[in-house]
């Protein structure tokens, strides 16, 4: 179950799925569902709803497998994007977020490196680059990615105007790209 997934194998499985190969699709599910379920659960916060998200996402994978093209990024990135968007749609359909979603401080802190510590080599490039952002903009980016927060929700949590959140996110993404591509 925990055998590492070769990116090429996943690409191949998606390609076969696009041709209607159900056993390839079943293998794709077996290889990726646990990780993707974790991602869905993180965003929606409830198991029953995360199950729905996973189900809808894999139906979408089956339908849209023909759109995937390895030249356009990794299979994992493509699958994760489908699951995250589906989960985000679920959360936004609800009137209110569950309480647990509003205080993800600990998980946020764990993800960004403190630029002042000297663990450079051990840190992933992304952690290092996140660590170079200011605290509030970094929090905005992570709240959006990890929990599907809207700009308005981030503004409420950070007690700033929505316009400020928009420019934080915009500038943070530009800086992340420069840092990661450097």
């Amino acid at each position, binding site marked *: 179950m925990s055998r590492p997934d070769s990116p090429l194998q996943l690409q191949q499985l998606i390609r076969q799925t696009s041709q209607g190969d159900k056993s390839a699709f079943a293998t794709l599910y077996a290889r990726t569902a646990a990780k993707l379920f*974790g991602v869905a659960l993180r965003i929606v916060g409830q198991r029953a709803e995360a199950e729905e998200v996973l189900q809808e996402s894999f139906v979408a994978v089956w339908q849209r497998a023909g759109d995937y093209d390895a030249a356009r990024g990794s299979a994992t990135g493509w699958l994760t994007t489908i699951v995250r968007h589906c989960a985000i749609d679920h959360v936004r359909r609800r009137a209110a977020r569950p309480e647990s979603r509003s205080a993800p401080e600990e998980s946020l802190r764990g993800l960004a490196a403190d630029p002042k510590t000297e663990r450079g080599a051990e840190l992933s490039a992304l952690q290092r680059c996140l660590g170079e952002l200011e605290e509030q903009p970094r929090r905005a980016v992570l709240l959006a990615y990890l929990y599907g927060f809207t700009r308005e929700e981030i503004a409420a949590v950070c007690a700033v105007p929505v316009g400020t959140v928009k420019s934080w996110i915009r500038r943070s993404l530009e800086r992340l790209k420069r840092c990661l591509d450097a």
Partner: protein
Amino acid sequence: MRYDDPDLRERLAAEYVLGTMPRRSRRRFERLIACDPALARTVGAWADRLAEIDAATPAEEPPARVWRAVEARIAAGAASPVPAHSWLGSLAFWRGLALAAGTAAAALIIYVVALPSRTGPPVPTVVAVLADQSGDPNWIAIAGPQRGEVSVSAVRPQAEDTRHSFELWGIAGGTPHPLGLLQPQSNSAAIIRAAQLPPAGDLLAVSVEPPEGSPTGLPTGPVVSKGKVLVTPP
């Protein structure tokens, strides 16, 4: 909006992946990605840049019922892969045509469909185009995928809301009879038996109902869409 501005493309791709784009903008952006390979690559690069944030999220084994549900939905044919020129591919085309041309095009659609197709797969028969009060089509009924079946799908995604559903009605001789709940997403279809449809010339209508459908067997909510049965499907 200028989609040829490289900075804007980069920013929209990043926000698409980050998830901060409003749903409607995201749907519009997805249509752009579908026909713009360079933009699709920019999106893929962002998905890969940010994917590492997921590394800290623990994997969690989903219960087996999730896969059973996925399998069942696929077996039901509600969602098949879309190789080029497939039935669903054609459906997308007809949907686009209905969306672009409005109900006034229904007669033209029938005319076009009636033409013998010399090459390629059989073209599906449009059974009805349902439009809202202002005449904008929002549901389309097409013969298939199997003989004796009709697929009804949203021309564009309808407002989804867990508190409501869209129910389809056949109105023969002025009396509505329920035909089933519709899927608000534009990428799936409700399959109904052609024999249940009212005869050509009579109406199909969609009403807003509680999540499980009308409890009374008659429409209880507002009728949001209607259209005539144009042909009796094969």
